[in-house]
């Protein structure tokens, strides 16, 4: 039996088939759902012993805050972390993917992962999607060759810098870094400066807010300081908070329906289909 045509293997990558249909629908007046973006201020700097990364914790869906305390500093390897700005799904997916690839690479080479490896994997993936994977990342880590800090842009270009900021709050954070950064900062000064830069983004950028996350990476040790600063506490009118005892809300009627078991599990033969 011969086939008239050889079936091609399924091609990888994004399938643009539905884009025409989406265009037609928008012309008809349908509002496309917005992407959940991390408005974001993310920063990184190199200090005397390694790298410090910082991020705010607000995730927005258009004008609404979807998550008040999300995690934007993603794990890549025990000695490499990555802050992500842009579409939340894209940053999560791409950092998870590269993190898995790095783990497999560690098994194969039996060595600690290098930051440049993570960088090359991220850059080639993002370039092949030509900017459609909207992930802007600050990648930092310490490996056998020393501390490294890189920024990765959605189109696949990278920069290597001693201090970097990304996201909608990057201008506010960069202003802080440009005026106060110096080489060879101590750990305390570095964490302080990162906190200041993120707070600058939190208070001056609408897309960033809530808390400050910090991650300090040094040779052999990483400290993930989740919610290192909480500059936006929720204030209550009463210092005791609110209590909701029975009797606060008037009950108009009560109806109780017990849930009866409807399905029966067939034993024995169930798995032998």
């Amino acid at each position, binding site marked *: 039996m011969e086939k008239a045509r050889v079936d091609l293997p399924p091609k990888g990558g994004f399938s643009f088939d539905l884009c025409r249909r989406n265009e037609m629908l928008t012309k008809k007046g349908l509002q496309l759902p917005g992407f959940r973006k991390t408005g974001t201020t993310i920063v990184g700097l190199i200090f005397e012993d390694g790298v410090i990364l910082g991020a705010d914790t607000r995730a927005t869906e258009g004008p609404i805050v979807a998550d008040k305390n999300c995690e934007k500093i993603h794990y890549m390897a025990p000695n490499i972390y990555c802050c992500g700005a842009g579409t939340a799904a894209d940053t999560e997916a791409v950092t998870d993917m590269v993190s898995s690839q790095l783990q497999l690479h560690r098994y194969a080479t039996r060595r600690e992962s290098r930051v440049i490896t993570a960088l090359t994997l991220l*850059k080639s993936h993002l370039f092949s999607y*030509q900017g459609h994977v909207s992930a802007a990342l600050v990648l930092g880590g310490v490996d056998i060759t020393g501390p490294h800090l890189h920024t990765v842009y959605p189109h696949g270009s990278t*920069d290597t810098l001693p201090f970097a900021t990304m996201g909608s709050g990057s201008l506010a954070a960069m202003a802080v870094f440009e005026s106060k950064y110096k080489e060879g900062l101590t750990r305390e000064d570095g964490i302080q400066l990162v906190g200041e830069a993120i707070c600058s983004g939190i208070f001056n950028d609408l897309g960033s807010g809530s808390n400050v996350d910090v991650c300090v990476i040094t040779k052999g040790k990483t400290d993930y300081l989740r919610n290192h600063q909480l500059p936006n506490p929720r204030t209550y009118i009463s210092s005791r908070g609110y209590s909701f005892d029975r009797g606060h809300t008037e009950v108009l009627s009560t109806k109780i329906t017990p849930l009866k078991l409807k399905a029966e599990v067939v034993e024995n033969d169930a798995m032998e289909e």
Partner: protein
Amino acid sequence: MDPDLSAPHSMGTTIIGVTYDGGVVLGADSRTSTGMYVANRASDKITQLTDNVYVCRSGSAADSQILSDYVRYFLNQHTIQLGQPATVKVAANLVRLFSYQNKNMLQTGLIIGGWDKYEGGQIYSVPLGGTVLKQPFTIGGSGSSYLYGFFDQAWKDGMSKDEAEKLVVKAVSLAIARDGASGGVVRTVTINAEGVTRNFYSGNSLPLWHEELEPRNSMLDILLSGASPEPMSI
């Protein structure tokens, strides 16, 4: 006006390649812009392809980085298979092949410069579209528009290494003065029979041109130092 931070990273750029008696000098500014925001004010646009061949990148940052990574990889293979350093001509040709064959998808202009024992110092220009041209000197990037007249007047054959370097630095600094998309520091790479030398000229070491003012201390520095601030002179 809000800077468009989702615009693709591009290197506005001024890049220059010049041959002299015995080698080549490559020069570039250091500004990478994302829309109207300067994403990196100290980028290095002169990338190594082999020990003796370097490339100046302009246009889309992503496209030029990926292209030079590919060319470096293939040149490395070629060097191993050949058993001796790759020639500048081969490097330029490889760049041209990638640039031409992917012309619909790439937006990058490159200047390849290097030294080999067969033909000495050579400069090849590979602009958008993928043409390859061997030239005694060439300029590229958005800032190059302001340098055509300057080079017509200032270029001469058979310069010494120092003359060539001074020419390159002066040219990049003139372009930085007039082109908004170029700025930062001037980086040069000199390649000759002895090897490769990288030089760095910081922004404030460059000469001031027409209507450029001396840098003034900020009011904050003046006030904090305790002296009473001088009134501005007209």
